[in-house]
């Protein structure tokens, strides 16, 4: 197989083979990507760039390769969402309240990546505390998508909350990136930027050292240009971890080994409730095309029903803010993070002013909703009811698995929208996660794969949902979509100086 002429056009798998085969050094590769990052300032994809650290890590990788001690991701430059704590490197979670936070420890997911030999290019921008679907809630200004509609220069969002990672992957600023997904924050930005994003089963990756948003929903996962690259990265992010009691003690499979096994005989469910009113006809058409592709490759298509689907999003907007209001209580202006400079009367005043100054509007709104639904007298009406509806949503999936092995759905209700288009209407923003949020509530794995372009030339994705801990089948089905879709479109290179 011939390699691309530009180093930054390599896929992660191509780079791995080139570096371990000594055709390219990690230093050459890392310099090329660090330059691409530095030249892509207009995208605002990074909060912190770490080119010196990247070069040090690359030099260490090259030394290992020379000694014949290469590890699985040796010398491969990655971007890290700014929600993962990185020892000695500022970690902001996209918030003013963590503007000066330098973690004295490393998250388990990133430690696993460095232990496998990967190189860090920097920390990617994101919606504040991962609360958003457009990256507009970041304290560090919105990320722009590298994509623009045909005959238009209008700035589009990269989706969110892992929008910096999505933008960096789509613009070839890194070989792959980490993301986190609480309601769709990996899959939605992947879908609208023409990249691949995988939310693993809850418990597959450790949450330790990842800034918490909603602990029963948060899960880290890979964002890449190909399904194979996602398979490679997930294997080296996942682990059981004594520091996260919800991480699961199951062997991590070699997802790459079964990637090309095809979908012959695989039963693919089409959940009828995912056909929503008001969705653009392009979404339904692409979904039908996806089913036709898989059928042509030997899969069996079956219609299934997930009757509680329409309640997933409102249930999420009780559970997630409730857990966020508890998790974000730790920002007190005392132990770390922003502390008000205003005159204060007492400790309560210190908390109230520090938190009001440190949190942005969307985060404040969600903390207040969460505080309300957990407050005395309302717990049963809201949180307890929402957790019961979660049980019903999980039950829907379990019944579907009697008829099928994976589900095929649209990934988003539409393509990327313009900056500012939805930022004044919280609920219309929340609706971006209508196809992804069910998976978080049920703890299942979901994969977004680029599948086509709108008439305006903007990417759309399809989603494969699988059984708990069956990422291997999800990736295999995603690979078949990737082959059939043959999505080769790339954004015009308008951002470089």
């Amino acid at each position, binding site marked *: 197989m011939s390699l691309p002429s530009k180093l930054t056009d390599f896929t992660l798998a191509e780079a791995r083979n080139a570096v371990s085969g000594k055709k390219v050094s990690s230093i050459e590769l890392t310099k090329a990507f660090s330059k691409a990052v530095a030249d892509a300032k207009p995208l605002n994809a990074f909060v912190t760039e770490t080119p010196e650290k990247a070069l040090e890590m690359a030099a260490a990788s090259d030394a290992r390769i020379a000694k014949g001690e290469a590890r699985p991701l040796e010398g491969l430059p990655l971007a890290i969402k700014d929600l993962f704590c990185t020892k000695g490197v500022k970690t902001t979670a996209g918030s003013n309240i963590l503007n000066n936070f330098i973690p004295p420890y490393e998250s388990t997911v990133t430690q696993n990546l460095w232990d496998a030999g990967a190189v860090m290019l920097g920390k990617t921008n994101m919606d504040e505390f991962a609360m958003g679907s457009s990256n507009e809630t970041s304290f560090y200004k919105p990320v722009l998508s590298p994509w623009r509609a045909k005959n238009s220069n209008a700035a589009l969002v990269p989706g969110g909350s892992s929008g910096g990672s999505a933008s960096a992957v789509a613009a070839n600023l890194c070989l792959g990136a980490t993301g986190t997904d609480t309601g769709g924050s990996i899959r939605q930005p992947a879908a609208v930027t023409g990249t691949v994003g995988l939310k693993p089963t809850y418990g597959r990756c450790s949450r330790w050292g990842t800034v918490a948003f909603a602990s029963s*929903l948060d899960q880290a996962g890979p964002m890449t240009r190909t399904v194979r690259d996602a398979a490679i990265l997930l294997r080296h992010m996942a682990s059981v971890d004594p520091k996260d009691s919800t991480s699961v003690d199951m062997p991590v499979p070699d997802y790459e080994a079964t990637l090309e096994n095809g979908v012959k005989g695989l039963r693919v469910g089409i959940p009828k409730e995912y056909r929503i009113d008001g969705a653009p006809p392009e979404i339904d058409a692409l979904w039908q095309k996806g089913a036709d592709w898989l059928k042509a490759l030997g899969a069996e298509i079956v219609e299934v029903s997930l009757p509680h689907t329409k309640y997933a999003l409102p249930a999420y907007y009780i559970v997630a803010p409730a857990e966020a209001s508890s998790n974000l209580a730790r920002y007190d202006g005392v132990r770390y993070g922003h502390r008000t400079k205003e005159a204060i009367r007492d400790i309560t005043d210190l908390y109230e002013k520090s938190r009001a100054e440190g949190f942005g509007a969307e985060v404040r709104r969600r903390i207040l909703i969460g505080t309300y639904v957990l407050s005395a007298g309302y717990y049963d009406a809201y949180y307890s009811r929402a957790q019961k509806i979660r049980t019903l949503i999980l039950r829907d999936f379990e019944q579907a698995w009697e008829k099928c092995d994976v589900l095929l759905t649209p990934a988003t209700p539409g393509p990327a929208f313009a900056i500012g288009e939805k930022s004044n209407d919280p609920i219309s923003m929340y609706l971006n996660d209508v196809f992804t949020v069910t998976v978080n509530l049920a703890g299942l794995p979901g994969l977004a794969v680029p599948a086509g372009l709108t008439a305006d030339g903007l990417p759309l994705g399809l989603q494969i949902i699988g059984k708990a801990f069956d990422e291997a089948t999800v990736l295999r089905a995603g690979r078949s979509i990737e082959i059939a879709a043959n999505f080769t479109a790339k954004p015009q290179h308008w951002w470089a100086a």
Partner: protein
Amino acid sequence: MSVDKDTVRRIAKLARIALEEDRVEPMERELNGILAWVEQLQEVNIEGVEPMTSVVAQKLKMREDVVTDGNIAEAVTANAPVSEDNFFVVPKVVE
């Protein structure tokens, strides 16, 4: 269910987030928009349904109740906005 201005002030107090008086009315509107939207959950029959307590079926792991970490006071206070001799500094709380 919906919230009024007093409830908004009370929740903000509980959440320890200062809310300027001119922000109370917009916040009331925003919260009520969201609460009206989640109201549809009331139509779901949840009779006899257990709330989800564990996302993935697994028994919570146990470990010995022993110290596994410590003696890192400097690392713990390194990010404190104000600290003295590895103590966090807060306004006087006891008269």
